[in-house]
């Protein structure tokens, strides 16, 4: 089976042997890829029973839970990376989830569809209906995306939360990732799917002691 382009890019970003939390890990394709290619110590968080049992029977470590609630229980700096691949628009409180991810991980990788893409804008303008595109293939009544945003929306949220965008790339299925400046107005038209590498602003890497033993 073809590997999703954002998974490839995530695998490129992750340091070998690091501790990775995949939020919304589905059936564990990304965790398996990262374990094979980067020997990461992977953990998953997944809400669906089907996804969790698929992960467990593959031998992956996964917790059945809800990103909106269960991230709060992890200690600060528990992971080197947290990954949120196309899951952020599906959570109830994206701002809280993003802030929590950057509390519990040193770096967070987020991929999300850009609602500012020209096809989306054109569809809405000409058809007057919710757009159906390659990165947003489901009709409004079937999609799990309840908090769609544009690149500009997302970078504004990062600024607001004091997050540093260390890298950003536009992704198109079947093509190599294209590094972009997400704050550039033109990219908000061009990028269909974007992937961000985020860290806390000002906080030097490894500021918090690893495995600090912080308990609730």
């Amino acid at each position, binding site marked *: 089976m073809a590997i999703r382009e954002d998974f490839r890019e995530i695998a490129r970003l992750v340091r070998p042997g690091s501790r990775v939390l995949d939020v919304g890990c589905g059936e564990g394709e990304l965790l398996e890829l990262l374990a094979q290619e980067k020997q990461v*110590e992977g*953990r998953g968080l997944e809400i669906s*029973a089907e996804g*969790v*049992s698929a*992960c*467990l*029977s*593959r*031998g*992956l*470590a*996964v*917790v*059945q*839970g809800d990103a909106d609630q*269960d991230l709060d*229980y*992890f*200690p600060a700096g*528990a992971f080197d990376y947290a990954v949120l691949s196309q899951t952020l628009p599906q959570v109830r409180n994206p701002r809280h989830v993003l802030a929590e991810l950057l509390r519990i991980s040193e770096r967070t990788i987020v991929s999300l569809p850009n609602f500012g893409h020209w096809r989306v804008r054109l569809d809405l303008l000409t058809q007057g209906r919710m757009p159906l595109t390659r990165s947003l293939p489901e009709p409004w009544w079937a999609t799990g995306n309840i908090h769609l945003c544009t690149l500009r929306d997302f970078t504004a949220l990062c600024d607001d939360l004091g997050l540093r965008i260390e890298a950003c790339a536009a992704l198109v299925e079947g093509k190599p990732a294209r590094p972009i400046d997400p704050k550039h107005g033109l990219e908000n038209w061009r990028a269909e799917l974007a992937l961000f590498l985020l860290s806390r602003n000002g906080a030097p890497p490894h500021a918090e002691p690893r*495995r600090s*033993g*912080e*308990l*609730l």
Partner: protein
Amino acid sequence: MGDGDTAPAIDEGGGVISFADAPLRLDSGARIEGLEVAYKTYGRLNADRSNAVLICHALTLDQYAASRHPVTGKPGWWDRVVGPGRAIDPARFFIVCANVVGGCMGTTGPQSINPATGQSYGLAFPVITIGDMVRAQAMLLDRLGIERLFSVIGGSMGGMQVLQWAADYPERLHSAVCIAAAPRHSAQNIAFHEVGRQAIMADPDWRGGDYASHGVRPEKGLAVARMAAHITYLSEAALQRKFGRELQRDGLSWGFDADFQVESYLRHQGSSFVDRFDANSYLFITRAMDYFDLGLQHGGVLAEAFRRARDVRFCVFSFSSDWLYPTPESRAVVQALNAAGARVSFAEIRSDKGHDAFLLDEPVLHAALAGFFNSAAQARGL
């Protein structure tokens, strides 16, 4: 299933080990002299002693996890999980299952002879805890030459022992699996147990716990205790599906016979239970469960219990229809393990079979267990 028939193919062992030299020190401060532990084993310990799995049993079960029960003649209570081709395969693991302290299948319990008096303990048996059960298991493993377990696994009270193992002996564990359990007994849990104990003590044949010397047994009381408890092991949906309002015979008796099939079923559960279980054991073991509060043992912070267990690979399961130890109890364990920085997996298995689902045919659970053990075995180099 008929799996008990394949038992002769497995390497089976066990017996009773006596600890004449060292007493079992109890949480209450008391001690048990001359402790005996009855156990069964399946499979063989490998050369580097790294493939041992300890199975912890539930309240009314025993060491016969994968072999025919000597009293009932029924196949092992966990032969869906333990056995050839199962998640815990004796071809791969050395499996140990011991009767808990306070039990009535060979390990020292209230039926045993009190060395101080030469009589059966009865109520003079010391109150025991889950921690005491685990300490006795650790003594058994010492004697069997097992320093570190590949895994410790159990459901219900067995799951409580697993959590206690993780708190008390984390360095002796590579992995741990806790199924359908809780980090402490809730008010409702204690309440149901109290109903059972009162039923036993209200039976005139209980004789203040001294029934053995009178040559009687409080069978009625113990049967009622079992009937009440058995309802908590099933879900409303499972009871309805199994029995509905179906009658035993055509028409009502207009009296108090077992008109409904569910009544007859419960009466059978009660009366068959008394053949294989001791009433005083029931009192002491339910008390141990009621006293269990792992967080309280660690300053009221459950995560503290797992502070030293970071390197243990955990797997926690609950069942969606279990109202005895509902999912939030398991979730509290998972959150505490996460807070402690342990590697934990957790799944709520969808089932309408209630608490007893851990003993029943649950393919999703069995596949998940196999996956967990495979990956843990790989990490252990097995």
